[in-house]
């Protein structure tokens, strides 16, 4: 471990280009002959399309063509799919309604794409889009998932009777009911997990280019997983076979899950490029991002948690209705099932757990994974319930948690997951110390004198990251494997390129992955380059989401490094006339242990490529590939403590302290980890206090379609975080890392709400805890 190796606080290599404005995003791309696209979108939440007249639009200045759904269908472009099969408890497969990239005869949410206009300039395309006459026959709409299940509710898809996609369960209902009936105490809550809009800084964009000479497509797109995009577009959407489609995801300005999925726009831009004969670029404006990016969360849940007379948990029952929006997005089905219910054991020994989930269509934007994806929802359910139980039982929230912590590992929960390692008491203790938990009563008294209501709240979260063992997820319905790939290319002069299937859209892979490589051979960081995001350069990979790049992506790099190191040692041993087993590679040299014989790393590399003097039978070159499939999820965990002051006159909440104690296993770069925690906390606090996507229930119009109405967290809304880490290395991967990208967003919402409810003395409070809601709750 050197100064730039694993564990070093290295400033991000990529930041120089980002902060000097030299990043290259999809919208920066220019292709000769490129034209601009604007989509005609539905102004209605639910309507039949009776006709589209583009005659006037096509005659407008600069317009190249206007294309619609029927033309797309005629060319054989397929419907969008959800790639994870979930079966209802009656054994029937999930009910997937047809989602055409351009609506054909019906629109089901405000903003759904109906036609594409291609013109010389973006403004000309916008003008023409306004001139496309779509004849709609409005239909009644439903936006609330619980109401969508009511008899007589507007029906979205003929495939899904009663708007029900699936009615899924895990665990044994009867055994849980029996245990709850016998429990000494049962805490019950009804909770809403508010719908969120991802709001990546960079809006989605696509540039489709059909090369007639080669009969080949290139797509520049804002993707977290370009290979998956290529696979899905080839295998399901019939855009082009994989060998005729190159997908490039260059610099991408934030994803948070919303750029995992394949959306209508990129499919349509590719198809339109072939139809029009010109490269077609589309960049979403902010309103389109609000309307059309896959939203997150949106659960209604009833929960019951039973305790015995010693305050030990005996059973947990959870009943959730999950709003899927108007169509099933790519991974939507997995989010409220295998990424949610499987985490409901939290950090606790709960012998019996049952969870029922009904997935429901509504006239809203599709909902899919958003930073945390299912795990924030699970943590919110459990940690609000545990804190409420402590209040009802008259026991301190910390003591109730301590009494129920899992302490022996591996631990098999009743809901599939097998926790490999953890020390929950360590993070609880660290957080309580950092928060000066014992000093809280005095601080509350002092605040009272200033007319403020002070409260403290805790959240002990666990998440499953390092997604995921392919065979395991395959058995649960996943349509893909979730391994990762890496190729390590040592160049002839010793510099190194790593081709990774992971994709960086803010994570800092160009730095952290390089640190892993630099550590191995002791070469300077600037001699290591990380290549990602281009299907023509990089071998098949699965991309970045679910805090998987460290645990899975970097593990693949380690496996490839193992192979490179083994071959380099053979070469060095041959050149140094030593035994292979005696060769050590460190500090940029291959040495014979216990002697002064050594070769510079660059010379070993050169020898591999000159091939003048290699061991008998060895192939030239020094380049190795690995496909790493994890053996288990990883289980980051931690404890967050929030302290708030509420203004009783206005209901305004001020976060006066926020402590995070996380266990991420081994850490490659503490600076980047802290940045990830800060960002996650900002998003979690945003959900808890500020952000709430709101559709008008009568019209289905998106009310929060801009920053005038949708509250993003600002610096002034956030305290200076106190973050620290405890460390139980992950036994399941070679680096012992667990993942840190989502923890902040997972653990913080219940801590904030627990603190506010502590301050105001009522548990009846839903997110976002806006001043109005807190004021109303106090009344």
């Amino acid at each position, binding site marked *: 471990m050197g100064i730039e190796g694993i564990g070093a606080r290295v400033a991000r290599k990529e930041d120089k280009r980002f902060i000097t404005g030299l990043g290259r995003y999809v919208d920066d791309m220019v292709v000769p002959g490129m034209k601009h696209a604007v989509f005609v979108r539905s102004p209605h939440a639910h309507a039949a399309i009776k006709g589209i007249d583009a005659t006037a639009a096509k005659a407008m200045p600069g317009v190249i063509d206007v294309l619609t759904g029927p033309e797309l269908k005629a060319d054989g472009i397929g419907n969008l799919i959800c790639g994870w099969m979930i079966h209802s408890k009656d054994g029937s497969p999930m009910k997937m309604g047809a989602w055409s990239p351009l609506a054909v005869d019906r629109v089901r949410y405000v903003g759904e794409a109906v036609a594409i206009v291609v013109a010389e300039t973006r*403004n000309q395309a*916008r*003008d023409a889009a*306004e001139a496309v006459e779509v004849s709609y026959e409005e239909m009644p709409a439903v936006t609330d998932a619980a109401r969508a299940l009511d008899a007589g509710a507007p029906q979205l898809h003929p495939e899904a009777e009663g708007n029900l996609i699936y009615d899924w369960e895990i665990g044994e209902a009867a055994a849980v009911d029996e245990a709850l009936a016998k429990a000494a105490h049962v805490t019950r809550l009804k909770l809403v997990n508010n719908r969120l809009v991802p709001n990546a800084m960079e809006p989605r964009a696509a540039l489709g280019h059909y090369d007639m000479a080669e009969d080949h497509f290139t797509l520049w797109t804002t993707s977290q997983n370009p290979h998956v995009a290529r696979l899905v577009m080839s295998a399901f959407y019939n855009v082009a076979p994989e060998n005729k489609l190159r997908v490039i995801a260059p610099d991408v300005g934030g994803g948070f899950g919303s750029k995992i999925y394949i959306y209508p726009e990129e499919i349509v831009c590719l198809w339109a490029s072939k139809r029009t004969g010109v490269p077609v670029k589309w960049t979403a404006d902010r*309103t389109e991002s609000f309307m059309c990016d896959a939203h997150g969360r949106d659960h209604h849940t009833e929960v019951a948690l039973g305790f015995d007379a010693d305050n030990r948990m005996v059973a947990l029952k959870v009943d959730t209705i999950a709003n899927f929006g108007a169509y099933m997005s790519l991974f939507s089905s997995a989010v409220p099932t295998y990424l949610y219910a499987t985490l409901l054991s939290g950090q606790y020994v709960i012998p019996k757990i049952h969870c029922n989930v009904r997935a429901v269509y509504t006239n809203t934007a599709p909902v899919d994974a958003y930073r945390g994806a299912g795990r924030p929802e699970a943590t919110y359910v459990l940690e609000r319930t545990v804190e409420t139980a402590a209040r009802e039982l008259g026991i301190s929230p910390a003591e109730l948690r301590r009494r129920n912590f899992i302490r022996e590992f591996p631990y098999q929960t009743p809901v599939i997951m097998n926790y490999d390692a953890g020390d929950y008491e360590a993070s609880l203790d660290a957080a309580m110390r950092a928060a000066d938990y014992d000093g809280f009563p005095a601080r509350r008294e002092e605040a009272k004198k200033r007319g403020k209501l002070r409260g403290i709240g805790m959240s002990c979260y666990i998440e499953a990251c390092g997604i995921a063992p392919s065979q395991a997820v395959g058995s649960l319905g996943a349509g893909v494997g979730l391994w990762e790939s890496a190729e390590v290319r040592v160049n002839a002069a010793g510099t190194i390129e790593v081709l990774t299937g992971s994709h960086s859209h803010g994570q800092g892979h160009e730095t952290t992955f390089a640190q892993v490589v630099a550590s191995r051979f002791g070469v300077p960081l600037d001699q290591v380059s990380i290549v990602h995001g281009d299907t023509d350069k990089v071998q098949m990979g699965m991309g970045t989401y679910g805090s998987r790049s460290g645990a899975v992506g970097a593990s693949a790099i380690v496996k490839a490094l193992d192979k490179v190191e083994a071959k380099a040692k053979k070469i060095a041993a041959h050149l140094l006339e030593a035994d292979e087993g005696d060769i050590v590679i460190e500090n940029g040299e291959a040495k014979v242990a216990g002697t002064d014989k050594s070769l510079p790393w660059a010379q070993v590399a050169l020898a591999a490529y000159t091939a003048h003097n290699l061991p008998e039978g060895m192939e030239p070159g020094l380049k190795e590939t690995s496909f790493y499939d994890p053996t288990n999820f990883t289980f980051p965990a931690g404890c967050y403590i929030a302290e708030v002051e509420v203004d009783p*006159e*206005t*209901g*305004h909440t001020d976060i006066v302290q926020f402590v995070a104690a996380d266990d991420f296993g081994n850490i490659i770069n503490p600076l980047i980890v802290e940045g990830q925690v800060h960002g996650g906390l900002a998003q979690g606090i945003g959900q808890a206090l*500020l952000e*709430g996507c*709101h559709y008008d229930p009568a019209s289905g119009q998106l*009310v*929060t379609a801009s*920053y*005038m*109405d*949708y*509250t*993003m967290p600002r610096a002034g809304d956030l305290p200076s975080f106190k973050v620290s880490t405890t460390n139980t290395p992950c036994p399941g991967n070679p680096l012992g890392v667990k993942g840190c990208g989502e923890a902040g967003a997972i653990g913080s919402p219940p801590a904030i709400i627990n603190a506010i409810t502590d301050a105001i003395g009522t548990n009846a409070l839903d997110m976002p805890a*806006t*001043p*109005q809601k807190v*004021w*109303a709750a106090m009344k």
Partner: protein
Amino acid sequence: MHQTTYHRASSISEAVKMLKEAEDGKFVAGGQTLIPTMKQRLAAPSDLIDLRHIGELKGIEVAGNTVKIGAGTTHAEVARDAALAKACPALCHLAAHIGDPHVRHMGTLGGSIANNDPAADYPAAVLALAATVHTNKREIAADDFFVDLFETALEDDEIVTAISFAVPEKAGYAKFPNPASRYALTGVFVAKHADGVRAAVTGAGENGVFRAEAIEKALVGAFEASALDGTTVPADGLMSDIHASAEYRANLIVVMAKRAVQAANGG
């Protein structure tokens, strides 16, 4: 944004002439409302006549007991004016808390009151200070100026040139910002004049800025926050939206009025 033609006027008369010659022209000052509206294609004037370079619209004068502020004065200029800070610090405070630095350096007093956004800050001050609105045609009392949401007594070719007001004995402004937009969810400007108290509320009324009689009555006897204890204002006529119900706004009016009085009394 639709195509538009930009004109820079160097005098009021030139601006009026430019408007007359335009097919569907609009005056623009800081553009902090109009430009975003045009970007959203909700407004599409054929011509924009820029008032920002007209010297006679600029400047702050404090003469004896009278304050006069040119309509083209930016919020940032109002916020940091030393003479105004002595005469009516509440107005500097108000200007310093409009929007963000970008808005404060572009937006103007005249633009704000001519637009009469129901959640803008300045209308509350103009009404509570019993200011006079000067235009290129006449003088209009504040009580007659603000008509309805986004509607004023201004005629199409009438330009606000300044506001003037008598320095109040005391004044204070407190607002509770909309969490998302940071416009006033409810803002109250109170001013104690020699002949009585005026309290104007922005952000809350269905018809825009208005005077809160219950607040004014309660403060006539004693200009103290405690004089408002037990005062309530009716929720009737107040706006209700996803950020605040009418009842919540009614509560905020009293709370912000108390805080405005505290500020007026020196904190």
